[in-house]
């Protein structure tokens, strides 16, 4: 790759929101980690409990982490509240973590601490209720599939990429009838350990009070080893170049789903790596978007996503609906050519600075919403890293070294394992 630097005045990375200092608590007892983030101009307190395990950590049945999330949330409600199941629960299972958020005012602090602590207790609900919750999970999974049929196609691409139906690839719809109470309790017992959990308390609270409450509610917990992320060792065949053609009636359009695996090997600064990754992925996403969508006429619609794991593994996925007159084979070829063309492209300093500015603007925009603050806090926290506030994120973005950004773009454009699913509709709608 050629590197060409263009002289450009730096974008201002100003961030005029009130400071949010992330303070690690000194006495965390058995927890993996605990932080307090005082936010003076906020009236409420949010407590996020991050279980550092998610769907990637499921052994062989997809959806167990999600079903366990339901049981733990409902059980904590039943244990603490006089009228359980009458509030909207805020819990979410991602690939690498499961996050429970409880919110209240200062006067409700004890109640929300109790609700948070109870998530770690083995779910105590009647057997029939636990069993019947499987039906709710089924309805939820089908509901999400109907709303976004593309999810299914992306899962097929990942299954081909990893040659697996568990860990980094999954089959939540196909496995719905395999969900059992016993497997969920087993998952809970293994993963819902204090030492596999991180606590983030933010809002109208100071360090002293937060420490006091953590000691009060988690003081009896014992430090154990964190559950190992076995999936981090799951990597595709180095020479994989898989293309699968299918015929389907599950989609609204002919569609291409593409997945690619590559690595950023320098793990000397894991937090810094995340910032470099945000900028690099913005640059390569923009490059592909320009060629296939904005300036070209290959895609009717095009969406991309990248994920970096704590060991530097990066997974890129793309979904493309071909533009009128473009067939799936052409679209696949053009997508691969667009990735390759990055090898000969000069990445200018201007491009890097624009990507920095876009990331800061994005953070600033989200920081307008109190709820979006929480996403910031839990984003890196889900990997066991310290939470990051929007302001700290802006500084990380400003400091990300150009050489690391370019290394990630080079790794993306190089030959690496990839899999594509070309899905053609049975009957053109």
């Amino acid at each position, binding site marked *: 790759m050629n590197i060409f630097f263009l002289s450009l005045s730096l974008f201002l990375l100003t961030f005029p929101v009130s400071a949010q200092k992330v303070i690690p608590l000194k006495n965390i007892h058995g927890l993996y980690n605990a932080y307090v983030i005082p936010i003076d101009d906020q009236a409420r307190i949010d407590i996020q409990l991050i279980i550092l395990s998610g769907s990637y950590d499921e052994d062989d049945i997809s959806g167990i982490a999600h079903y366990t999330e339901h049981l733990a949330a409902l059980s904590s409600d039943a244990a603490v509240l006089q009228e359980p199941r009458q509030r909207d629960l805020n819990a979410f299972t991602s690939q690498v973590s499961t996050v429970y958020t409880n919110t209240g005012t200062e006067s409700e602090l004890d109640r929300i601490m109790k609700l948070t602590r109870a998530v770690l207790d083995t779910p105590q609900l009647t057997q029939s209720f636990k069993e019947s*919750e499987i039906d709710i999970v089924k309805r939820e999974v089908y509901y999400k599939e109907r709303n976004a049929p593309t999810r299914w196609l992306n899962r097929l691409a990942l299954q081909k990429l990893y040659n697996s139906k568990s860990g980094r690839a999954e089959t939540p719809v196909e496995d719905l009838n395999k969900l059992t109470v016993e497997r969920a309790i087993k998952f809970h017992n293994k993963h819902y350990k204090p030492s596999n959990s991180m606590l983030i308390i933010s809002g109208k609270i100071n360090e002293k009070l937060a420490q006091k409450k953590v000691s009060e509610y988690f003081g009896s917990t014992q430090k154990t080893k964190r559950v190992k992320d076995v999936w981090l060792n799951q990597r595709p065949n180095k020479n994989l170049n898989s293309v699968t053609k299918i015929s389907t009636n599950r989609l609204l359009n002919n569609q291409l789903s593409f997945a690619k695996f590559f690595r950023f090997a320098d793990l000397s600064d894991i937090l810094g790596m995340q910032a470099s990754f945000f900028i690099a992925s913005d640059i390569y996403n923009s490059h592909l978007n320009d060629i296939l969508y*904005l300036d070209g006429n290959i895609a*009717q619609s095009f969406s991309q996503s990248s994920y970096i794991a704590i060991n530097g593994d990066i997974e890129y996925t793309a979904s493309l609906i071909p533009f009128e007159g473009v067939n799936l084979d052409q679209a696949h070829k053009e997508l691969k050519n667009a990735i390759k063309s990055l090898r000969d492209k000069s990445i200018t300093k201007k491009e890097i600075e624009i990507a920095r500015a*876009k990331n800061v*603007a994005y953070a600033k925009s989200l920081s307008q919403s109190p709820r979006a603050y929480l996403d910031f806090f839990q984003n890196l926290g889900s990997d066991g890293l310290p939470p990051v506030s929007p302001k700290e994120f802006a500084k990380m973005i400003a400091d990300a070294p150009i050489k690391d950004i370019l290394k990630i773009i080079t790794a993306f454009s190089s030959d690496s394992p990839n899999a594509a699913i070309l899905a053609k509709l049975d009957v053109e709608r």
Partner: protein
Amino acid sequence: MSNKKIIFILIGIYFSVTSVFADEQINDEISYVTEFASLNNNIAAASLVWTLNTQTKEQSRKLQAFLAAKISGPIGNKSVREIIDFRIINDINFSIEATPKHLILTVQSPKENFKIAAQHANEILQNNVINNIWLKRKNHSYRNISSTQLRTPELVESELINYVLYTGTVKALEKDMINLEISRRPNQIILNAKDFDFEEVPNILLKGLTNYDAILNNEPVKPFFDLPNGIIHLADEKSSETLIFAGTVQKFKTLSHQAEANTLFKYMGYGAGSEMFRIIRQEKRASYDPRSHFTQISDQLALTGLSATVASEKWSEIYDLIFDIYNNTRLGLNTEKGMKNSYNTMINELISNLRRKPNWLVKRYLELHPNKPPDTFINLKLIDASFELSLPEINIMAKEILPEPSKLISIIIGGKINSKIKDNNKFYCQLPKNQPIEFCLKKLSVAQDLF
């Protein structure tokens, strides 16, 4: 350049009191400017409104797709990439809405960037070159997706609303005509920001746009249709999931009546404390998404209803249960605590709409003042009516507030035919596969002579 009329509406910080007054009045009879101050502190928005009668939903889609293509495509020498990066860095967002009488383009950004956001919006409007690739893309994006394909309650709601609102038959719209129409000055500009001086923003938005009257579809909008009652069923024996919707489009006698109905629908199906959630999800374990619908679609007119997606083998049992919930609520058998929660939810939703959704306020305003602002002051009486409800009275009056169950239309998508339900209903339509819901709505309407 433009003369303007500015009217402020101030909404008290706790929204317990509303006060309205007119500020200055200058008027050039082409573009009227109205200013609100309800949005959250850091946000400013401007909505450009073209008064443009639309006869069919297809016309409305074409107009919106055209405006979307205009926003998405290149402008002169500027590439789409440059434009997108500029918008992301300055946090400038556009949205498009349409009603049978208006096409609305809203630009929104943080207050500190709003003047450049307005300049950018004007640059888009002045650009008359429409990129055909983007137009094709946007026509595809705005295409009709039938609720029978994805089985989501949101699509059912949208199809029912379209059936009621778009009642004309003229279909064709020429691209050049649309371009000409959207190149003219908008009829109204509606600004919204708290503690912000819009100063020259209207002039910036209107710079270089030509003045002429609407040329497209200048015929009056045809009267809305009523929804028929009865049952529409798309049977699908292979489906694992069945969507049930039961509702109607309700015309309210008063704004209080509207707010009361909204509260009752919140009681029936909004959130974890509601009757639908408590009975259908938590007791029967039958659905993930039981909920109620209350969407205002015109002045004192809203689509209301209840919906749930259930395992196909259970659909008729849950269908009966949904009607039990409706009937019990209508009989006023509602808990004091539940009603209080529902009232708070209704008020919170109202406040959230005012603070975060500029388009919501624009549509409410346009329902009252479709062509130009009033000479004196603007009074959105819905706000006062909502705050002044008496909860005990709602329970007593619930029977009058909610229509009789026999007046509702039920839409069932999926599952087997239930002969008992079929035989017991005078107005029943089995929807053929690949037909939109409209097919049966028309049949039932003919049977009930609703046109």
